[in-house]
């Protein structure tokens, strides 16, 4: 068995252990183990239907995705017991592959409402931690302090909010008129993807999952999205990028690449793994690792490189 994916004591990581998820009674994830720490960028690749979207939707708490066993903790808290909004308050974020349109609700109104909610709830969380003296350990003090600093800060004033929004729009090469358009209503595919990244830039999560942020985009749009991701990237955020293709990874270099096949991570590596996959295709996986894939995953002969 793998040993490096044991629950991570550092409270600022997302730690997924033996996660099984079913959709409409069909098991899609069959035991996923993964740890994403602050400052790390992970990419998950895999063929269609392998369970990539299921993983991030289950982690964000979509009610259609039923967790049948396993755990997922973030900052030490079992997120699988929480409704989606509480997961967001903890710092999780999902950039949707197919974001919903909310007709009649402007982007600015939506983001402002979300920010107010996040600030209010994150403040409650940090207050509770302070009161209970529940800071997990000394190593985490810095992280806790950072959270508290963010949490106890006042909700940005309207003026500051508008400035942040304008900057985020500029970053993603979106016209300022986007702020007054209704959320995703009549947006092109590329506009939807950019709005997802814009939300990430404005809401400042601590662990962001990006579900195929590049799908359906031409190369220029991929670059814009990747630049947005790079602007958000930093020591205080963990990123988990789901992608079918290597090309976005040319602009956003991941620290780790994982290959998901039939509900399990069958191989993990550094950025070279994505290049190899791109060059040789998914057949290479089967040839190199042998068939059937279920056996391979069970044998767990997959090398996991860890920094």
């Amino acid at each position, binding site marked *: 068995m793998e040993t490096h994916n044991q629950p991570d004591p550092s409270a600022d990581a997302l730690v997924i252990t033996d996660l099984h998820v079913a959709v409409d009674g069909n098991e899609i994830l069959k035991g996923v183990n993964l740890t994403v720490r602050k400052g790390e960028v992970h990419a998950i690749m895999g063929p269609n239907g392998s369970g990539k979207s299921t993983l991030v939707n289950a982690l964000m708490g979509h009610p259609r995705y039923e967790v049948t066993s396993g755990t997922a903790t973030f900052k030490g808290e079992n997120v699988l017991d929480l409704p989606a909004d509480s997961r967001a308050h903890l710092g999780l974020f999902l950039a949707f592959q197919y974001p*919903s349109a909310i007709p*009649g609700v402007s982007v600015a109104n939506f983001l402002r409402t979300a920010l107010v909610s996040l600030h209010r709830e994150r403040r409650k969380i940090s207050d509770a931690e302070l009161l209970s003296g529940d800071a997990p350990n000394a190593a985490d003090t810095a992280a806790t302090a950072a959270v508290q600093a963010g949490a106890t800060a006042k909700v940005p004033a309207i003026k500051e909010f508008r400035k942040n929004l304008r900057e985020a729009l500029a970053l993603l090469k979106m016209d300022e008129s986007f702020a007054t358009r209704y959320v995703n209503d009549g947006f092109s595919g590329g506009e939807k993807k950019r709005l997802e990244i814009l939300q990430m830039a404005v*809401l400042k999560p601590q662990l962001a999952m990006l579900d195929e942020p590049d799908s359906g985009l031409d190369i220029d749009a991929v670059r814009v999205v990747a630049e947005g991701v790079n602007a958000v990237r930093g020591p205080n955020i963990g990123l988990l990028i789901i992608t079918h293709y290597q090309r976005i990874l040319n602009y956003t270099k991941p620290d780790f690449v994982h290959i998901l096949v039939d509900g399990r991570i069958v191989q993990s590596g550094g950025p070279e793994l994505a290049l190899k996959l791109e060059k040789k295709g998914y057949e290479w996986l089967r040839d190199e690792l042998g068939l059937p894939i279920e056996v391979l995953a069970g044998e767990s002969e997959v090398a996991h490189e860890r920094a």
Partner: protein
Amino acid sequence: MSGLNPAPPATQMALNGHRSDPVAISRAAVEALSTQLQEPAWLREQRLAAFATYESLPLPKWSRGIGQWWTTDISAVKLENLQVYTAPAADHQPPDAFSTQEEHAGLIVSSQGGPLSSHLRADLAARGVIFTDLATAVREHGPLVQKYLSQAIPVNADKFTALNGALWNGGIFLYVPRGVAVDLPLHGLTTIGHTGGVTLHHTIIVAEPGSEVRLVEEFRSAGGDGLSPVDKTVQGPLAVYSGVLEVYLTADSKVEYFTIENWGPEVYTFNQRRANVGKNARMHWVFGLLGGRVNRSHVDTELLQSGAETQTRGIYFSHGDQVFDLATLTHHVGDHCTGDILFKGALRDASRAGFEGMIRVEPTGQQTNSYLSDHILFLSDQAKADSVPGLEILANDVRCSHGATIGMIDEDQVFYLMSRGLARVESEKLIVGGFFEQVLQEMPLESMRELVRQQIQQKVELPQRALVAAR
């Protein structure tokens, strides 16, 4: 604010000079009322004839849907046990009434028994605008009233209309002379008290050629508002409001009529509204239906001559055990007329809504453009709705379309918003607010939009199945 004249205390302002206890519905009551108001013979006869019609008609039965699977239940309304107020019985005015806070050109405040106060800006009165309660108008402008009263809506339309014809004691008479454009809205505020009983108001709007006017009517009650718990098992003093509205638009005139119905949970309300629209005239209707135990509303727009136009924008939002029952008719008689109706409704808890919209085009109605749509959003799987748009087209050169959508609130939308940190109720507030926004955007009065927005937000926030009486 200039132009704002708060109504004086209730005790000072029974315009008709009488106060009386409510009376049972009877021929004697009709005679007594007519005597009390010193009415001319034609009106007395008209009232008595209406009473005979009332006695001859059954309670209406409004059925809906395939196989008439649902009938709007008004069995609790036992008219023989109810009493009618025939003089003002003022006891309550909502301090937050929209109409008293708005800048306006005139305001008439009424209780269940009739008018309490009346105001019209002097310059408009000097230009010949009449804006007064209907009984006063009969005294001061008898022949003019006679020309219009119950002409568009015959008293035999249904039992409530007949009762209204017999015993009306409130309502507004609004007359705008040729070429006069009233700049600010005129307001009517009707509030009924705790005591139940029957309130009967008849309103007439006459727009002479080239005139323009906007009337905003707000309806409230002391027993709560559109946010109060509504539960059919709670037995409060039942109140009935019957409203008859007749609008007469002559050539090139423009009338906008807004109604904000924010009744309490004890009120059964029955409205008959009709506009006769003349050549190149424009009738705009705006509905904000939020309150009441049962709200039945019939709106009939008669596009009688060439180039007549009508637009309707309406929202309804029901909760608890509320029942909203809407029927609209766009009747194209003239050629080159335009109709455009858009309703949006949301339903919570175990509430019900029925919508029946008809576009009828006569053989004379060539080059008609007419549209009708109704969109319903469910916030609960206990709620029920039936939406029936219909077309009857007898002309051969027209463009008509109708449509209806009904759906549950989209869980993917809710998840999307919750994933950004919004609680479920906050998510629903945004989604429902957005759902209504398209209609609100097209309502011409920003202050009314804002009022309805707030009410919608508060209504989403009500506790689930707020069925326990808090009165």
